[in-house]
């Protein structure tokens, strides 16, 4: 039987302004998690009952550790940031389908926007061949070193060019004359949409990890839908971000929302 976990926080650290890295003692999930999967993190009971979906940033199978990296953007993430080492949290997972990994692919392009970067770390560990990462941030980059540690060649863009390239990640991709065999992308929807357009232009297949508001996280409530093209039809159907995704093929997503 699957179950809810109450892991202990073994580390919590503010790695950049309002961005935290939390390590959980969570052997069961560390053992089986795939890159691109997420967990439901719950607030203490009270005002905020719904789970916060957070991507698995990295796992350590041997030590049984799951690392998350999250931005404080609202009440839930703020409450997580106040938790201290030794306290426990309520977790459901691993949830969703991760990135598809094809061993025959040799040149990988990771594209991350802001707080979409975390799942790319675990992904990089699973890929073989050459890996490029193009990361876009508003101001301060995160997790660059971590990616480089896994042999990834990282390019950074920031809105005002304070660090790296000045502009967005698509401009950066074009600027670098990037090419490759598969795109893996995570970030805000407008960025994913732009990635999707660029990928089509370039004729590269792209996987995009999409965010939507979650209630159950296990495919029950039909709350987290994303419009998906039906094969060989003009029509579309609803896919569930939590169980059909969060990773989808960019060419099959209906972007014009």
């Amino acid at each position, binding site marked *: 039987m699957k179950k809810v976990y109450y892991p202990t926080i073994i580390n919590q650290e503010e790695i950049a302004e309002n961005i935290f890295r939390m390590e959980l003692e969570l052997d069961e999930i560390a053992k089986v998690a795939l890159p691109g999967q997420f967990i439901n993190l719950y607030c203490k009971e009270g005002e905020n*009952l719904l789970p916060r979906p957070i991507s698995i940033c990295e796992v350590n199978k041997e030590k049984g550790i799951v690392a998350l990296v999250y931005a404080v953007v609202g009440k839930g993430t703020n409450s997580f940031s106040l938790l201290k080492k030794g306290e426990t949290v309520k977790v459901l997972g691993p949830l969703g389908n991760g990135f598809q990994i094809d061993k025959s692919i040799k040149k990988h392009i990771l594209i991350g926007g802001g707080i979409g970067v975390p799942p790319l770390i675990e992904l990089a560990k699973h890929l073989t061949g050459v890996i490029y990462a193009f990361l876009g941030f508003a101001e301060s980059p995160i997790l660059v070193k971590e990616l480089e540690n896994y042999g990834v060649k990282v390019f950074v863009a920031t809105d005002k060019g304070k660090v790296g390239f000045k502009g967005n990640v698509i401009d950066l991709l074009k600027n670098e004359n990037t090419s490759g065999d598969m795109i893996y992308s995570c970030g805000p929807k407008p960025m994913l949409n732009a990635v999707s357009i660029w990928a089509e232009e370039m004729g590269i297949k792209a996987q995009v990890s999409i965010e939507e508001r979650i209630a159950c996280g296990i495919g029950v409530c039909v709350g987290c839908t994303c419009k998906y093209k039906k094969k060989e039809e003009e029509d579309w159907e609803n896919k569930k971000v939590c169980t059909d995704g969060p990773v989808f093929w960019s060419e099959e997503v209906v972007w014009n929302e």
Partner: protein
Amino acid sequence: MNNPNMKINIAGVELKNPVMTASGTFGSGKEYSEYINLNRLGAVVVKGVSMKPWKGNPSPRIAETYGGMLNSVGLQNPGVEVLIKEDIPFLRQYDTKIIVNIAGKTVEEYCQVAERLGETDIDMIELNISCPNVKEGGVCFGTDPFMAEHVTKAVKKVAKQPLIVKLTPNVTDIVSIAKAAVAGGADALSMINTLLGMAIDINKKRPILANIVGGLSGPAIKPVAVRMVHEVAKAVDVPIIGMGGIMNGDDAIEFMLAGATGVAVGMTNFTNPTATIEVLDGIEKYMKKHEFSNIDEIRKSLQY
């Protein structure tokens, strides 16, 4: 002390205990069967189903609120044929009753679903009268006694299984709607459906839900639900299935003391996948502590 008798009887159907799932919050049970033993539930109430597939509303469909949530799923469902082909056979593997919640935009559509289900071995039908009546300019069936009675009567005529009518709380006088449903032939009532609500993202200056409004559920609404169950239980003779914010056994007992025969767990499934079992265990514990040997006694024991 012996284990208390938790069996309940709704319109001739015997449930091993009063704990059910609220429609739309349990899918058709498959996902939660990985977390709990479905055999322990009194009944599984399947998500709302219509004749043809419905696409529901655009996303976002979920908004969190204080002690609750809004949803604007809009009754997305793959249609009754998929339910019959995939979900019913799955649930039949378990020793629990199957109640199918049905949706429609016209009286005819409701009737078609009920008729089609009559050809199956499901145990009961739950008629969700919170849907908009397209022929009456989109007014919700369940907010008008006349329409409520009319649709109940029409479905009752074609239904092979006992009929539960599920009431919406967005009304001035819930008793008049309850009486209308009973007059129309309802064998039982379930209540409450969600309260109509709205939430706004003040930074984006937009409603959070693409549909603008949605249905409020969760512990925030429990006092309204308990009040309505209490009012209706005094006014009608059919059994009531109570729901609205049940999180644990104590909450369920509160509904029973208010007059409910059965109870259903809704939103709490999302926050706690094993909630139904905890509710069941909690009820049993309460019965032992308060020396109830029979679940029906609870319903009759409210003092004033």
